[in-house]
C-alpha cells in the first residue's frame, strides 16, 4: 500500500525545480507584445524559418535513428575492446560547445575539409550554406541524446527474451527486429523526441557550419538571434512560436507513441 501523500523532502525540491524551469517561460509570456502579435506572426520570413526548422529537425532525427539505434545496440550488446572509449566518444558533441562543433564540421565537411574537398571535386557537392548542411549540423549535436537513451533502454531491457529467441533459432538480425526493437520502443521514442527537440533548438553548430541565409539555412533559432539584434519583442514572438509549435508536436506524439504503462 503506497502512501498517498508525497514526502515533503521530495515534493519541495520537485516544485522548486519545476518553478525554476517554468519561470523563464513566464518571463517570455509576460513581456510578449500581445496586441501586435498577429501582425508580427504574419511577417514574411517567419513561416519560412519555422518550416525550415521543422523540416531539418525531422530529417536530422530520421538520420540519427538510422545511425544511432544500431550504434546504441552495439554499445549495449556487443563486447569489444575499447567500448568504454567509444562510449565516451559518443558524448563528445554533448560536451563540445556547439560553435566549436560547427568549426569542426567545417574542417571535415567544408570546402577545404578532409572529406569536403573530395566531395566537392568528385561529385560537386558542397555542404556548408545548404539545407543539407543544417541537417548535418543538427544531427551531429542531437545524436548523442538518442544514443544515450536507446542504450539505457537496451541495458535495462531483459536480455533473456533475446536469449530465448536465439535458442528458438532466430538469428541476431531477426532477434533485433522482432524482439529487441519492440522491447525498447518506448526508449527509442523518448530518445527520438529528445533528439528532435535538441535539433529544433540548435543554434551554434548550425550558424557556424551552414551559415545564415533566409529560406535556405535560417532556422528559427537563427531568426531569433538576429531579431534580438534589433527588436527584443520580435525575438520574444519568434521564441514563443517555436516553443508553442514544439510543445504541440511533442505533446501529440507523446500520446500517440509513448503510452505510459
Amino acid at each position, binding site marked *: 500500500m503506497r502512501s498517498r501523500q508525497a514526502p515533503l523532502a521530495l515534493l519541495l525540491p520537485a516544485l522548486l525545480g519545476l518553478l525554476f524551469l517554468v519561470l523563464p517561460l513566464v518571463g517570455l509570456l509576460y513581456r510578449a507584445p500581445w496586441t501586435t502579435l498577429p501582425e508580427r506572426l504574419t511577417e514574411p520570413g517567419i513561416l519560412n524559418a519555422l518550416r525550415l526548422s521543422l523540416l531539418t529537425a525531422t530529417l536530422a532525427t530520421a538520420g540519427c535513428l538510422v545511425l544511432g539505434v544500431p550504434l546504441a545496440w552495439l554499445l549495449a550488446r556487443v563486447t569489444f575492446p575499447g567500448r568504454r572509449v567509444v562510449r565516451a566518444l559518443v558524448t563528445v558533441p554533448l560536451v563540445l560547445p556547439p560553435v566549436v562543433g560547427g*568549426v569542426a564540421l*567545417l*574542417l571535415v565537411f*567544408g*570546402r*577545404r575539409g578532409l572529406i569536403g574537398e573530395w566531395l566537392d571535386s568528385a561529385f560537386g557537392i558542397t555542404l*556548408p*550554406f545548404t539545407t543539407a548542411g543544417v541537417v548535418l549540423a543538427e544531427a551531429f549535436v542531437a545524436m548523442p541524446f538518442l544514443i544515450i537513451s536507446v542504450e539505457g533502454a537496451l541495458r535495462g531491457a531483459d536480455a533473456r527474451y533475446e536469449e530465448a529467441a536465439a535458442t528458438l533459432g532466430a538469428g541476431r538480425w531477426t532477434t533485433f527486429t522482432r524482439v529487441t526493437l519492440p522491447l525498447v520502443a518506448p526508449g527509442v521514442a523518448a530518445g527520438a523526441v529528445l533528439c528532435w527537440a535538441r535539433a529544433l533548438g540548435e543554434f551554434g553548430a548550425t*550558424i*557556424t557550419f*551552414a*551559415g*545564415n*541565409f*533566409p529560406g535556405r*539555412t*535560417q532556422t528559427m533559432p*537563427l531568426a531569433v*538571434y*538576429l*531579431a*534580438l*539584434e*534589433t527588436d*527584443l519583442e520580435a525575438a520574444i514572438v519568434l521564441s514563443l512560436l517555436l516553443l508553442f509549435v514544439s510543445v504541440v508536436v511533442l505533446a501529440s506524439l507523446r500520446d500517440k507513441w509513448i503510452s505510459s504503462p
Partner: protein
Amino acid sequence: MRARWISVVLAAVTAVALTACGSDAADTATTAPTGGSSSAAGASGEITVFAAASLTGTFTQIGKDFEAANPGTTVTFSFAGSSALATQINQGAPADVFASAAPANMKTVTDAGNADGTPTVFVKNQLVIAVPKGNPKNISTLAGLAQPGVKVALCAPQVPCGAAAQKALQAANVTVTPVTQEQDVKAALSKVTLGEVDAALVYRTDAKAAASDVDGIEFPESSSAINEYPIVVVKNGPNKAGGQAFVNYVMSEPARKVLTDAGFQTP
C-alpha cells in the same frame, strides 16, 4: 613567433611610457568637471567595462595600460555583441562604461535613460574586402564580389557590419547575393580564413588582426559606410568615478595610439 615578441616588447614599452605620463592623466582627470571627488585621479577599485567584441584586442591592452597608470584600479571587461550588451545594461547589469560598435545600440541605452551624459565617438571603423591570402580570385573592387562563381559572406543586415555593407554596396551600385549572412563580423571573417567563401566584407581592424590568413582590400565606397564607436559612462554603474576616468583615458593620446595601430581611425 617573431610577431609575438614584438608585441610583448611594444606592450612593455607602452606600459613604461604610460607610467611616465600617469601624473598627467591624473591632472586632466581632476580638472574634468565630473571628477569632484576626493581622490586625486578619481579612479579606484574595480571598473567594469562593457565593450563591443571588435574592441577585444585593443581594450584589453588599454585596460592594462590604464591599470598601470592608475594604481589601485582593476578593469574588468565583458566583451560581446553591442546589442547584447545594450540589452544587459538596460536590464540592470552592473556596468560602469559602455563602448558600443554602433550608434544604434548606444541609442537603446540612452533612450532608456541609462547613460550618464552624452556618448562620445572615440573611433571609427571602415569596411574592407577580406580575401584569402594571395587573393586567389583576383578581387579588387566591390563589383568583383558580384562575379559568378565567387562565394561571398556578408554580415546580416540586422548587425552593424551588415548594415554598413549594404550601404557600401548601394553606393557602388552592386548587387551581391551572399551565400550566408553571418551573425557578426568575426564569423564572416572566419568563413574566409577557413576557405569556405572567397570574400567577405569585414572591418579593417578585423582584417588587420587576421593578416596572416587574409588580405584586406580597401575600396572607395567604404567612406559612405563608416561605422562610429560611441562610449559613455553608465548612469547606475557601481563605480561611476572610475568609469569616467576610464572614458577620459580612452580619449587620451596613448590609448588612441593603441586603437590606430589596430586599424581604427580616430575622429
